[in-house]
């Protein structure tokens, strides 16, 4: 399949990219940001998107950093999934991110696909959104009026819709540095390597004095947007991290889902999988929390 025709632009800096997007937007033609292209190019080939312009941010230098700074793990716009996968810092201190990156698509796709693109695409079937909801991440958006920060919980506004405006670029993902006694995990059910999730669940817990001080739960592909299971999160706070507590939280998380039936399963099955996966994610998160100095 050959993509429809478009004009291709290669800005050298982020401000140049934003300026170009703003200018193209004023002309009334659609312009899309290209980074790894692993979601966008298939959409073009299937004619599900027909932008008149692609603005390739892939050649802007200095956007492929992974660093801790100011209380956050900062992931630059051009960090590939394979780079996140290979990061020793991420693997040891943010294992929930490694859980996520290593189940996205397949290793070849991960050599091109970017973490920021996985969020910016706004697909409820993508894996990073649930994880970023669970860990309370935020994104930095660079637009015509400068930079602004949006919490991931406010980023997904509808199916394939995000807080990004036409001339915006998602320039950085920020994950709070986890406190002692915290742990997170992401688990995904997929039919085969490379498939989108039948369902997926991310959990992040902060445990202090034998009680859950903070909880974050995100769900993949069981609704029109990535889902933050707030009822389950609130239920967990102040409780002991035991099996009965997690079972009830998992039930509440599943109740917050609204899956659609498709080839991956019926609605009831997917909701049940959301429950099972949430339970597994919570259990694994608690195990990891116990190893990071939780009392």
């Amino acid at each position: 399949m050959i993509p429809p025709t478009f004009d291709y632009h290669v800005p050298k800096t982020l401000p140049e990219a934003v300026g170009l997007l703003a200018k193209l937007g004023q002309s009334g033609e659609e312009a899309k940001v290209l980074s790894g292209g692993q979601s966008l190019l298939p959409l073009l080939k299937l004619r599900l998107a027909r932008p008149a312009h692609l603005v390739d941010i892939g050649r802007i230098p200095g956007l492929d950093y992974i660093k801790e700074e100011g209380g956050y793990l900062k992931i630059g716009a051009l960090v590939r999934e394979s780079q996140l996968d290979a990061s020793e810092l991420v693997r040891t201190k943010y294992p929930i991110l490694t859980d996520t990156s290593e189940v996205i698509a397949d290793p070849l796709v991960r050599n091109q696909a970017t973490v920021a693109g996985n969020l910016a695409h706004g697909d409820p079937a993508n894996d990073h959104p649930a994880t970023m909801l669970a860990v309370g991440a935020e994104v930095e958006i660079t637009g015509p009026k400068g930079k602004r920060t949006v919490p991931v919980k406010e980023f997904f506004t509808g199916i394939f819709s995000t807080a990004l405006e036409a001339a915006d670029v998602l320039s950085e993902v920020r994950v709070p540095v986890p406190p002692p006694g915290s742990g997170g995990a992401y688990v995904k059910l997929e039919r085969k390597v490379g498939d989108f999730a039948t369902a997926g669940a991310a959990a992040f817990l902060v445990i202090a004095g034998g009680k859950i001080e903070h909880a974050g739960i995100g769900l993949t592909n069981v609704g029109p947007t990535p889902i933050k299971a707030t009822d389950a999160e609130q239920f967990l706070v102040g409780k002991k991290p035991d099996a009965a507590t997690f079972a009830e939280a998992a039930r509440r998380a599943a109740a917050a889902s609204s899956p659609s039936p498709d080839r991956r399963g019926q609605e009831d099955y997917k909701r049940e999988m959301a429950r099972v996966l949430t339970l597994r994610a919570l259990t694994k998160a608690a195990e990891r929390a116990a190893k990071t100095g939780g009392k």
Partner: protein
Amino acid sequence: MATHKITVTVNGAPREAQVESRLLLVHLLREVFRMTGTHIGCDTTHCGACTVLLDGQPVKSCTVLAVQADGRSVRTVEGLETDKLHPVQEGFMQEHGLQCGFCTPGMMMTACALIESNKNPNEDEIRRAISGNLCRCTGYVNIVKAVQYAAAKSR
């Protein structure tokens, strides 16, 4: 629609082309450069038959634009053989790592990248590395053996 003049180093030799924005890397290789060793399988980023190394990293060339490869280096199956077979080619031959051969160019490029970064991959590592390359006839048992053979030969 504007076209772009690009230079891509293919198997060590710089090649120039004037291309449309929408031209895919796999089509650049097969139809502009007439190098048909790289196969098109599913054309939907699933099967990995079109795998090439882009700056040393295996990628699916049906999901990369030719313009994205401008100024970069591409290695294809045609670049494996020198005066003798590459250890990966020899491994696939010795261990019967192919039947129909359709997935083989992509499979070999992924294997090539793996053994360059991991001199002694175990079965689990090999299976993970090739999990984006589908084979529908040989089966993976002999492909794993072929990669192990190549790794041993390269050490």
